[in-house]
C-alpha cells in the first residue's frame, strides 16, 4: 500500500514522493502535479529510519529533520540530471535570476529582501531563499524554485534564466568586482550542496560548476545593508 504518494514537478523533473509528513506535503503542494507514468526521481520516506537518524539532532523537530533530509536527498539526486543546488538567496528581476551566495550569516536573505523593498515584490520575486536548484536546459542555465528554502520557506515555483552569482561580504562601503575563475571555483564548491558520499555525483557537480563558469559571470560584493547596495548590483548586472 502506498502511503501518501504524491507527484511533483521540481526543476523540470517529475518526482514521486511517498510517506511524507503533513508539514512537508503542505510545503510541497505548490509543486504538485497530476501525473501518470514513471517519475524521474522517486523518494520514499522510511518514517522509522528518519526518526532514528533525527535523534542525533534533538534541537530539530521531526518535521524540520524531514525537511532537511529530503532537501539534501533531492540535491544529490538532482546531480544525476545535470543540476545542483547552490546555498544562496535567489531573486528574479526583469527575466533574470541573481543569486546572492556566501556562508551563513553573510546577509543573503537580507539583501534579497532589500531588492523586494526597492523594486516591489511584484517585480523582484524570491525564487528560493536558501538553496535554489540550478539546471541546464537547451544550453541555458536556469534557476528553479524548490520547496526546500531554509528557515524562511520563501520560494516560488518558477524557472528563470540565471543572470549572475554574487558572493557577499559585509563591509562599510559597497564595491562589486568580477571574480577570476580560480577564486570563483573555490567559492562555488564551498557553497554547493555537495554529495559527500557519491564519487560520480561529485564529478557531476564539478562538471556543472565548470559549465557555469563558462557561461555566467561570478562576482564578489563588499556590501552594507542599504539601497545603495541594491543599486550597485543592479547597475553592474542590468545596465
Amino acid at each position, binding site marked *: 500500500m502506498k502511503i501518501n504518494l504524491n507527484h511533483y514537478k521540481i526543476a523540470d523533473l517529475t518526482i514521486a514522493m511517498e510517506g511524507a509528513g503533513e508539514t512537508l506535503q503542505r510545503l510541497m503542494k505548490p509543486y504538485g502535479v497530476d501525473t501518470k507514468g514513471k517519475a524521474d526521481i522517486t523518494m520514499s520516506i522510511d518514517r522509522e529510519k528518519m526518526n532514528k537518524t533525527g535523534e542525533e539532532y534533538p534541537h530539530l523537530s521531526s518535521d524540520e529533520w524531514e525537511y532537511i533530509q529530503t532537501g539534501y536527498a533531492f540535491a544529490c539526486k538532482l546531480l544525476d540530471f545535470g543540476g545542483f543546488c547552490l546555498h544562496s538567496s535567489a531573486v528574479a528581476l526583469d527575466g533574470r535570476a541573481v543569486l546572492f551566495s556566501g556562508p551563513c550569516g553573510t546577509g543573503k536573505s537580507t539583501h534579497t529582501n532589500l531588492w523586494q523593498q526597492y523594486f516591489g515584490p511584484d517585480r523582484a520575486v524570491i525564487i528560493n531563499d536558501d538553496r535554489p536548484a540550478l539546471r541546464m536546459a537547451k544550453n541555458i542555465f536556469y534557476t528553479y524554485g524548490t520547496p526546500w528554502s531554509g528557515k524562511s520557506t520563501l520560494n516560488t515555483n518558477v524557472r528563470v534564466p540565471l543572470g549572475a552569482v554574487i558572493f557577499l561580504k559585509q563591509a562599510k562601503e559597497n564595491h562589486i568586482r568580477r571574480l577570476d*575563475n*580560480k577564486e*570563483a*571555483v*573555490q567559492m562555488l*564548491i*564551498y557553497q554547493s550542496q*555537495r*554529495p*559527500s*558520499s*557519491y*564519487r560520480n555525483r*561529485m*564529478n557531476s557537480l*564539478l*562538471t556543472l*560548476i*565548470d559549465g557555469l*563558469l*563558462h557561461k555566467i559571470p561570478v562576482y564578489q560584493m563588499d556590501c552594507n545593508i542599504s539601497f545603495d547596495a541594491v543599486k550597485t548590483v543592479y547597475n553592474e548586472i542590468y545596465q
Partner: protein
Amino acid sequence: MKIKSDYVIREVAGTCVAVPTGKASIDFSGMISLNSTGAFLWKQLAEDKSEQELLSAMLEEYETDEATAKADISEFFNKIKAADLLE
C-alpha cells in the same frame, strides 16, 4: 606513498582542484587547489610511489634540474602531509 583514494581530482575552469568524498569528507570539508606541478605530483600519487620515483617522473616530464625538482616535491609534500592527504 599514496593519496587517499576518496579524493576526486578535476580541472574546473582552468584550475585543478581536489575535493574529498566519502570518509575523507568527514575529516575535511574543504577543497584543495593545485598548480600544474602539484596536479602532476598528485596524479602520480594515485598509485603507491616512493620519493625517488616521483623525482624521476618529474625530471622526465619537466625540463628542470634535480635541485629544483626536489624543492618542488618537498614543498608539495609539506602541504599534503599537513592536510593529512596521504593514506
